[in-house]
């Protein structure tokens, strides 16, 4: 139990993917202009990552590894994730329109994104067990959502600030992310 908790908290706070591992930055900077979008995106990323991790884990340990095809991981996972996301979008749009409006609209955006691919890869690289992969994926997703939401709230506040012109937009977003990651350093060494 403690093991899972460590893994989870580690993924959420201490080794936050965005702030210390530099993954998923494109969405992180792209979506964080708006708080409600970032909440939706956070949910989307978490769910997609969890499900694609499960899928990828199965494919890896039942197909790729037994046949010595581990070098195909990249291509197989990326195609898998992309098609899975498409499928998911389709299903949700049809079956749960409410859910779709909440975060379905962000699905296509994340089909090809670092973090969604990285987590399944890290899972198999670290040979996490099935359960651990799931915990890790959820933790990473929540960590990502946390950073995204915080960032969005900061950026929304900065909309009303006198940020110097050249820094406006992406520049100040980077600096904010830098300071956020400074703050998150407080969690380092905790586990």
């Amino acid at each position, binding site marked *: 139990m403690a093991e899972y908790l460590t893994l989870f908290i580690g993924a959420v706070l201490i080794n936050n993917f965005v702030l210390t591992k530099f993954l998923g930055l494109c969405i992180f900077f792209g979506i964080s202009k708006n708080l409600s979008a970032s909440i939706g995106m956070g949910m989307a990323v978490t769910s997609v990552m969890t499900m694609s991790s499960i899928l990828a884990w199965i494919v890896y340990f039942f197909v790729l590894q037994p046949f010595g*095809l581990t070098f195909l991981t990249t291509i*197989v996972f990326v*195609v*898998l994730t*992309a098609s899975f996301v*498409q*499928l998911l979008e389709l299903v949700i*749009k049809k079956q749960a329109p409410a859910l779709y409006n909440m975060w379905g609209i962000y699905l296509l955006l994340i089909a090809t994104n670092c973090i969604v691919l990285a987590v399944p890869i890290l899972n198999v690289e670290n040979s996490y067990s099935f359960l651990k992969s799931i915990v890790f994926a959820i933790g990473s997703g929540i960590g990502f959502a946390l950073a995204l939401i915080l960032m969005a709230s900061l950026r929304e506040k900065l909309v009303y600030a006198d940020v110097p012109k050249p820094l406006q937009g992406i520049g100040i977003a980077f600096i904010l992310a830098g300071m956020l990651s400074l703050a998150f350093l407080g969690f380092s060494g905790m586990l």
Partner: protein
Amino acid sequence: MNTSLMIIIVLVGVGAFFGMVLAMANKKFAMEVNPLIEEVEDILPKGQCGACGYAGCAKYAEAVVEDESVPPNLCVPGKDAVARKVAELTGKKAEATEPRYAFLRCRGTKTAAFYAAEYEGIFDCAAAKLVQGGPKGCKFGCIGFGNCVKACPFGALSMGEDGLPIVDRAACTGCGKCVQTCPQSILALKSFDAPVEVACSSHDKGAVARKLCKNACIGCGMCMRNCPHGAIKLEKNLAVVDSTICREKCTEAVCLAKCPTKAIGALVDAKSIRKTA
């Protein structure tokens, strides 16, 4: 060799899976964004000024592509060139858009206008208007805090040394954003091919108007009486030029010489009318 075979099997398998998913997706919902919309949007000037009556360039692009009845020449800033291109892309017929530019109907410069009070507060025309109509004695004229300058999406306006905004006609697209913004409603869109225009908005009686601003139209009617074509009328102590008549008939602007305050001016270029002040 075995591995190589497996590579192909696995990849083809994945490809087939992917293909099936996509095929299904396609079957279930074959919604496609019309790529034309993007192309049209590319052509639009991206001022996001809303002069077309839509909430931004993208919305207009969508409307003009998808709705038969939306004419291609609604983008005022784009002028003819854009209208032609949009028409071409959408297969609609372009009608010429008449180029128009912003024109300031006030010459109450810092030195010409009488300042009744000092103003303290927000540097904003609308906000200053709330405080007893602003610091100038004339309550019809330009307040001079440049809301129009801030509003112009094309950078065509600048605040002059004399405290009045200057229109750069090369940059002005006639979008009308400034006209909507000005709390005094003293900016107007003019086609500038009429020879004269009245650069004052004061409805004060002559004596009062004269006291409050040296350059005010005092409603004396000299221009009206001297216009051979009857293009000028007086409305509430203010001369108003009917530019249609003026444009069509006027050969020599006699009115100009008659105006005692030079509130009526030649429209040759943006600056000259100010210079006569």
